[in-house]
Every structure is written in structure tokens, then in C-alpha cells.
């Protein structure tokens, strides 16, 4: 082995231009890998945090048996009732890794301003959970301004008695409700709407933040309740842009005439123990005598949007990484082939004076391995600089089916760095070995003579 590295290094220095060109190809490829990987990491984390926290999916979701499918259709038999919520709460209290938890209603209905009605899909949890989510470090870190409410304060800041709700800007426009609760002067008398077609009624609509929610309650009776728009919420995804309503659990419970909920969400302190906690909760709930179903947050059945997006991202990332690897492999093949042709005579001489095939092969492999190593280091530098520049530019883009523009942020991820290192190093070793091996398999006299011509 002695001398191998010396010879390899000297050979790299021998053809500086080719070494630089090949090294640059590897470095750029790796930098691209890091940047694409960093972007993937950013979007993956964003989608994960968005799904688990603001969408209130939690890390684990408990349903009554078949509740996922039937809770909204036949809530009396398939949604959780008040007793269920108590049972699950008691079970969850025995788990150490739980950060917070609570019932969640996913419901439908109409919002009315007195003149127009628009359909809504509402998500409701207890205000303390809304607060915990709003203040959660992960939400602050990964969603930042994305989830920031426009005007007013979030629903958790208000007394549930007034029926505080958050609606999307789209719904606000449809309902001609510009103001939020805090902007309406207290004690202003309500203005009668009169004829809904007249301009006067339009103006009257815009004077307050008051709406009515209408829905079929779980007992089958039509039900309505007053609500105050206290703030705006970003829907986060296009299909909810005009329909999302976020409300306190108690408000929707009274709207749907229930003490229960659609499901029960559990947020973990350490999500890496998801599997253990799932098993633990399953065990705890089994002992209650009632049958529940528990889903993980990344289960396609409860969060199809997240899973679909991630699949798309993974395909895209794999494709780009594959192209980068191929380009790198070809440039190494190319460079190694030229090196072998240039040094054919030398290979013949090495073999003649007693170097074994494997040793000569190693000479080339080590040479390209060293080149790869330097290039990877350069690639890390390039990638870091590239990421800093991109992050600094604050490039905004609107990804498909995400309603708000995202800034492109590259989040360095050791996983993609590791994957890139393994793939690129593997490609280097393979390419240099196969080229050198081909040369070394030839008759020694053949190699020596070839060089004379």
C-alpha cells in the first residue's frame, strides 16, 4: 500500500486541467445534490409540521372503530361521544411522551352573513391546544409567517362564549366581511340588513364581524349558532382556500349537539418514539373494553394530502439525484478512460516489474477516490455558499396545491449529504475500477507494445 497515495496524488497533479474539470463536475453535482436535498428537507419538514400542528392531526389520532370512514356520516354510532373522550384522556394521561392531546371535530355546514350562505369545513380543538400549537417551537421554526393570522388575534385569545372563529380570506370576501371582531367598536348598535339586494345592506354587512353557522347536528336536527370572526387563517392548501373555518371545540360541539368529537389527537414530545407510543396507546385502550382505531399522522388514510405531496417530492428528488449521479459517473468514466489511455505504457511497465493486477487497479481507484474526496469537500463549500445565497434572495414560489407562496429555503440535511457522498463515492469507485480493470486484464506485452505505436 505504501507509495500508492503518493503516486495517486502526483498523477492527479500531472494533468491539472483534467483533474480540475472532473473535480468540478463532481463538486457541482454534489453541491446540486445538497441544495436539492436541502430544499426537499425544508418542504418535507414544513408539510410535516403543518399537518401535525395547524391541521391538528397530532402524531396519533384515535377514532372509534370505522370512525374514520363513518364518523361524519353516522356520528351517533361512529363518532366519539363524551364518555369516549374521557376514557381516551385517562389512557393518554398514563403516557409519558405526550405533550398535549384533546378531542377534534372535523365538520361541515354553512356560514351565513344573513344574506348569503357559503359551505364550510371546520376544524375544532380546545383553545388551549390552539394556543399550544401557535406557540410551538416547531411551528415557529418551520412555518414562521406562513400561519400568521392577518388581522386580530387568534381564536384562543377570546372567550369561547362569543363564538370566536377564524376564516380564510377567500371566505371573508364571499361573505363581505372585512372587519374582524377587534375592529368593531363595542356598543355599536346592529344595523338591520333590509333588502339584501340593496347597496345599503352591503354596507351594513361590512360593519360587523358577526356570522351564523348552520349545520345538520349529529342527532339529525338542523342547528345554528352565532359566531364572531376574530381573525383570518391561511388555509395552507388550495382546496380549503374558500372553505376552512377554525373554531373552538365547544362552539362546534354546541353546533352539532354533542359532547363528543370526530377523533382524538395526541401530540408527542419526542415523535421519534411514534411506534412505541402507538403500541402503548393501543394496549391502554384495549383494556378499556371499547374498540378504537389509532392512526399515525403519516398514514395515507388520515393525511392523504401529506403522503401524496411527499411521494411526488420523493420521485422528483430521486430523479434529480439520479441524473446528477449519472453525470458524475460519466465524467469520471471519461476522465479515468483518458488517464488509462495516457498511462497504458506505464501500466505495462508496472505489471512487468511485478505489480499485481489488483495493485495497479488500486492505483487508479485511489487516485479517483482522492479526487472524489477533494471534490466532495469543494462541493460542500459550493453547496453551502449556494444555499446561503438562495436563502438570502428570499425567492418566493407557489407550489402546486399550497395556497400561500413559500420562500425557497435550503435547509442543510445530513441525510442528503450522506446519500450524496455514498452515491458519488460509489460511482467514483465503480467507474475508476471498471476502467482500470479493463486495462489490467489485457496481456502485458499487448499493453507495452500498444504504447510503442
Amino acid at each position, binding site marked *: 500500500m*505504501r*507509495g500508492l497515495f*503518493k*503516486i495517486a496524488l*502526483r*498523477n492527479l*497533479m*500531472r494533468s491539472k486541467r483534467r483533474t480540475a474539470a472532473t473535480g468540478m463536475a463532481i463538486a457541482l453535482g454534489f453541491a446540486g445534490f445538497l441544495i436539492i436535498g436541502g430544499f426537499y428537507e425544508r418542504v418535507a419538514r414544513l408539510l410535516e409540521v403543518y399537518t401535525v400542528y395547524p391541521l391538528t392531526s397530532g402524531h396519533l389520532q384515535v377514532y372509534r372503530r370505522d370512525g374514520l370512514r363513518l364518523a361524519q356520516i353516522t356520528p351517533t354510532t361512529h363518532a366519539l361521544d363524551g364518555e369516549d373522550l374521557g376514557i381516551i384522556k385517562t389512557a393518554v394521561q398514563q403516557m409519558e411522551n405526550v405533550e398535549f392531546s384533546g378531542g377534534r371535530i372535523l365538520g361541515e355546514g354553512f356560514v351565513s352573513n344573513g344574506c348569503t350562505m357559503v359551505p364550510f369545513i371546520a376544524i375544532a380543538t380546545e383553545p388551549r391546544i390552539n394556543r399550544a400549537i401557535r406557540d410551538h417551537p416547531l411551528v415557529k421554526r418551520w412555518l414562521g409567517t406562513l400561519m400568521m393570522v392577518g388581522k386580530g388575534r387568534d381564536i384562543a385569545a377570546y372567550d369561547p362564549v362569543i363564538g370566536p372563529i377564524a376564516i380564510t380570506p377567500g371566505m371573508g370576501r364571499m361573505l363581505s366581511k372585512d372587519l374582524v371582531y377587534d375592529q368593531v367598536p363595542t356598543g355599536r348598535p346592529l344595523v338591520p340588513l333590509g333588502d339584501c339586494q340593496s347597496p345599503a345592506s352591503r354596507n351594513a354587512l361590512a360593519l360587523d364581524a358577526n356570522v351564523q353557522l348552520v349545520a345538520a347536528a349529529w342527532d339529525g336536527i338542523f342547528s345554528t349558532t352565532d359566531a364572531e370572526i376574530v381573525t383570518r387563517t391561511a388555509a395552507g392548501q388550495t382546496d380549503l382556500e374558500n372553505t376552512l373555518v377554525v373554531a373552538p371545540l365547544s362552539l362546534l360541539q354546541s353546533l352539532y349537539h354533542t359532547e363528543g368529537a370526530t377523533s382524538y389527537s395526541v401530540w408527542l414530545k419526542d415523535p421519534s418514539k411514534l411506534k412505541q407510543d402507538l403500541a402503548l396507546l393501543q394496549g391502554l385502550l384495549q383494556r378499556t373494553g371499547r374498540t378504537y382505531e389509532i392512526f399515525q399522522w403519516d398514514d395515507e388514510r388520515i393525511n392523504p394530502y401529506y403522503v401524496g405531496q411527499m411521494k411526488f417530492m420523493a420521485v422528483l428528488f430521486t430523479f434529480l439525484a439520479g441524473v446528477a449521479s449519472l453525470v458524475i459517473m460519466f465524467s469520471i468514466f471519461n476522465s479515468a478512460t483518458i488517464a488509462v489511455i495516457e498511462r497504458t*505504457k*506505464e501500466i*505495462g*511497465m*508496472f*505489471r*512487468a*516489474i*511485478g*505489480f*499485481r*493486477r*489488483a*495493485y495497479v487497479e488500486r492505483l487508479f481507484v485511489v487516485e479517483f477516490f482522492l479526487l472524489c474526496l477533494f471534490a466532495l469537500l469543494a462541493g460542500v463549500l459550493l453547496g453551502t455558499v449556494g444555499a446561503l445565497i438562495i436563502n438570502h434572495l428570499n425567492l418566493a414560489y407557489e407550489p402546486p396545491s399550497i395556497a400561500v407562496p413559500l420562500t425557497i429555503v435550503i435547509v442543510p440535511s445530513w441525510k442528503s449529504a450522506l446519500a450524496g457522498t455514498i452515491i458519488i463515492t460509489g460511482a467514483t469507485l465503480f467507474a475508476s475500477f471498471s476502467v482500470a480493470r479493463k486495462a489490467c486484464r489485457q*496481456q*502485458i*506485452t499487448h499493453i*507495452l507494445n500498444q*504504447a*510503442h505505436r
Partner: protein
Amino acid sequence: MQKDHAGLQPIVQLTGVSKTYRLGQTVVEALRTVDLTLARREFTAIIGPSGSGKSTLLSIIGCIDTPDRGRVLIDNIDTSRLSDNALSDLRNEKIGFIFQSFNLVPVLTVYENIELPLLINDTIARAEHHARIMTALRDVGMETYSTNLPDQLSGGQRQRVAIARALVQSPTLVLADEPTANLDSVNTHKIIDLMLDLNQKIGTSFLFSTHDEKLIDRVSRVIRIQDGSIST
């Protein structure tokens, strides 16, 4: 078993060695049933016209090519039974090569070029390497050039370095295929003198090929080769 005058095993024994090349329709018999024995310490020249089979013969003796028929014994070892790795080791330990075009590694210094055969030689202790390289350098009169790169040397100097490289691991046999073909007549004689000197001094056998008839009187043994057949 044949023995030479010193009562030692010969270093090379070829029996019935043939080598044929086929290029499409034409068949070239490069060697025709060659029998040859080389004794230790012998200084031998192979002389023959171009295309007579000199290089082919040297390649087969040097174990970098294999005969189609016949047996090759190097230091009494039947080379046909050896694996590629074993042949490599045999070449490294027993045979030194000098090439017509020197074949020095351009990125290595004179010292490092001479060191090459030692890098893969397990039979010589590492502590000995420096002394051996310096001795080889002195033997060829190149001790002041140890840190030079090959392209800073003249052709004659490069061939001296190549000779030092061929001798550094004390092989029993040195093979040189037209070592002087790329040199002028002054350098040619200097290189032949040097090889003769070293043959006397360290007792290594030399076998070199040439088509230069003027060199005949300087060697102890001449093998003539014509159309793949030899006459001693």
C-alpha cells in the same frame, strides 16, 4: 537436469517453446520450437533482424507473455503452473526489466522510480530500501540526480535510472529489449559498458536484444535468431 560450469541450476530453461500470432489470414510463427538454457552470471546478447522474434523471446522469458507450446523454467520454477499473482511476484523478485523507451514514471523522482520494485517486494526489509536505492544510484553513476524528475534527464541518463530500477531488488536475471535503440553510439557503448560492469560486479545474468552487429564482440555469449529459430 542440465547444470552449468559452476555446478548451479541454470536461471532460464526453455524447451520446445513456440509462439504463433494470427492476424486474420496470415499466421506468423514468431518462435519455432526454441530450446535455450541461460546460465547464472552469463552476459548474453540476442541478435537478429527486425521481426525475427527477439522481443517475443524476451517477453516469454520475462513471463509477461506465455508460449503456445513448450516449457519455461525460471530458476527451476515451471511458470506454466503459476497464477497471475504468483507470476507477478516471480517477476518482481527474480527479473529486472530494461525497456527500449525507458518507461520511467514521469511524476516520480529518480529516487522514487528506483524505489518502485521495492514497494511491492515483501522479501526485502523496509530498513534496507534506502541503502539499496543509493547503491543502485551509485552503481549507475546517478547519485547526484536522485531528486530529479525523468524529463530533466538525457536519454542515456534515463536508461541508467532504468538500469538502477531493474537492479535494485537484486534480481537473478535482467532482461533488456533493445536498451540502446533510442541512444546514440556514444551512449550505447556507455550503457553496454555499464551493464557489463554490473554483470561482473554483482553477478546478475543479463540478456539483451539488439540488431547492432557491432556489439557482438563485447559479450560472452551470442544467440542468433532468424525467423523464430535460434542458433547459438
